[in-house]
């Protein structure tokens, strides 16, 4: 069943490409700043946090320059956040289409995530610029960012599929998501380092995949240490199982989209 679905997706790949292109054109069509919006969000938050923790509440967050530290957490977080913001209402926004014509519904959330991912890549280039500006050498272990990004995509897609399909049935998801994401932001080590956290709270690294990803991004980028393979593989397996379950859930919910949307 899963394989047949994948074949279906590949067969219709032109539609996915068109949807991604559409998301892009719609977004930047009447926007004067165009693609700059991709980096404005992480950059502006980085500046605000730097200001707060330098002048308002002077705090020692890490040994790194504050902008570098904050941006390294904001980068993956912004991808996760905008993916969910795009994908959760993607099905209900296209209710006219869903009621009329058959096509792989999964393309609607996926195209939103794809746009967020391009933003993520652009923001990543800016990150390289920031590192260069602060003369922070990039170690070879920075290559571990690739498997960590794969993990990030895996969890982002899973959460998106799960939440966007429930949102078709219960609009509560769309309403709750803003609050949920704001709380989630603080449960993720973006503003702080897990090293400063009391031992008994460290369990969140295992419950919150984003905490794991951001912690390890910083380890391999700034400490020049490789990621723990066993830990990574267990996260990867958990992520894959989660993705398969979310996908299966999406497929079941999908059959009634046109009836309940």
């Amino acid at each position, binding site marked *: 069943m899963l394989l047949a679905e994948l074949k279906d997706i590949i067969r219709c790949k032109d539609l996915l490409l068109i949807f991604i292109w559409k998301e892009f054109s719609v977004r930047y069509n009447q926007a004067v700043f165009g693609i700059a919006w991709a980096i404005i969000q992480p950059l502006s938050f980085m500046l605000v946090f730097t200001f707060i923790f330098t002048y308002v509440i002077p705090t020692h967050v890490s040994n790194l320059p504050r902008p570098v530290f904050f941006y390294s957490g904001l980068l993956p977080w912004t991808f996760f956040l905008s993916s969910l913001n795009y994908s959760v209402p993607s099905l209900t926004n296209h209710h006219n289409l869903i009621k*009329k014509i058959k096509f792989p519904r999964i393309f609607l959330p996926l195209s939103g995530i794809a746009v967020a991912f391009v933003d993520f890549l652009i923001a990543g280039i800016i990150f390289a610029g920031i590192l260069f500006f602060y003369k922070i050498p990039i170690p070879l272990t920075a290559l571990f960012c690739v498997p960590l990004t794969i993990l990030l995509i895996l969890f982002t897609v899973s959460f998106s599929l799960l939440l966007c399909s429930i949102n078709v049935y219960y609009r509560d998801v769309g309403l709750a998501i803003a609050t949920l994401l704001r709380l989630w932001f603080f449960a993720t080590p973006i503003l702080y380092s897990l090293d400063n956290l009391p031992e008994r709270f460290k369990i969140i690294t295992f419950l919150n995949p984003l905490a794991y990803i951001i912690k390890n991004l910083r380890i391999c980028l700034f400490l020049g240490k490789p990621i723990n393979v066993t830990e990574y593989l267990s996260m990867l397996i958990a992520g894959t199982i989660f993705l398969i379950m979310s996908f299966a859930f999406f497929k079941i919910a999908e059959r009634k989209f046109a009836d309940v949307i």
Partner: protein
Amino acid sequence: MSSNAPIIEFKNIWKKYSRSRIFHKSLREDIANIFQFKKNKDLSSDEFWALKKINLTIAQGETLGFYGPNGAGKSTILKLIAGVTYPTKGTIKAEGRIAPLLEIGAGFHKDLTGRENIFINGAILGMKIPEIKNLLDLIIDFSEIQEFIDMPVKKYSSGMYLRLAFSIAIHSQADIYLIDEIIAVGDEDFKRKCLAKMNELKTKGKTLLLVTHDLSLMQQLADRIIFLNKSEISHQEEIL
């Protein structure tokens, strides 16, 4: 043309809908049903049958009209054929590529130009990108809105909108065309053009399914009319 092989077959189709606004049960039931291997086929208090014991065979190349009062189940039948919804009971077979004519607001994005929307709409209808590129000029010519094709569709009149939507759907190389209440919007000239195009599709052996409240138009086009009333087929009429 009805001697051809059946392209669509409805076998004792029942379809129920819920009246309630929130679907407390349905998702939970669907998940539970996977483990219990049972299907919930009885009607509960807030549900109603949108279609009852529909048996229907449509041959390839046939043009079929559905006629009946609002809420009789015409659009539900088209939705079942399009594969966007599934029957509660019974089995449906529909073969070939299906092109529903998308109503205003469905397949179009208002901020994008007519040309861009041809690509979006075409892809939704199952066309590949090169296919759309090849047909682009034909689609624009047929719609007769060349001078406005690079304008955002939010600035279109509803007539221009319809012309483009119809033109895309009709050029989409499908086997089955679903035309729901749409021809009424255009002006006389365009209407005539659409009818000519539909007749052309008929001679090419395509299957056309029409829903309209214009009975004389339907009698002009269709080979057979299905009269629906209160979720059931009341009678059929062959047009000679």
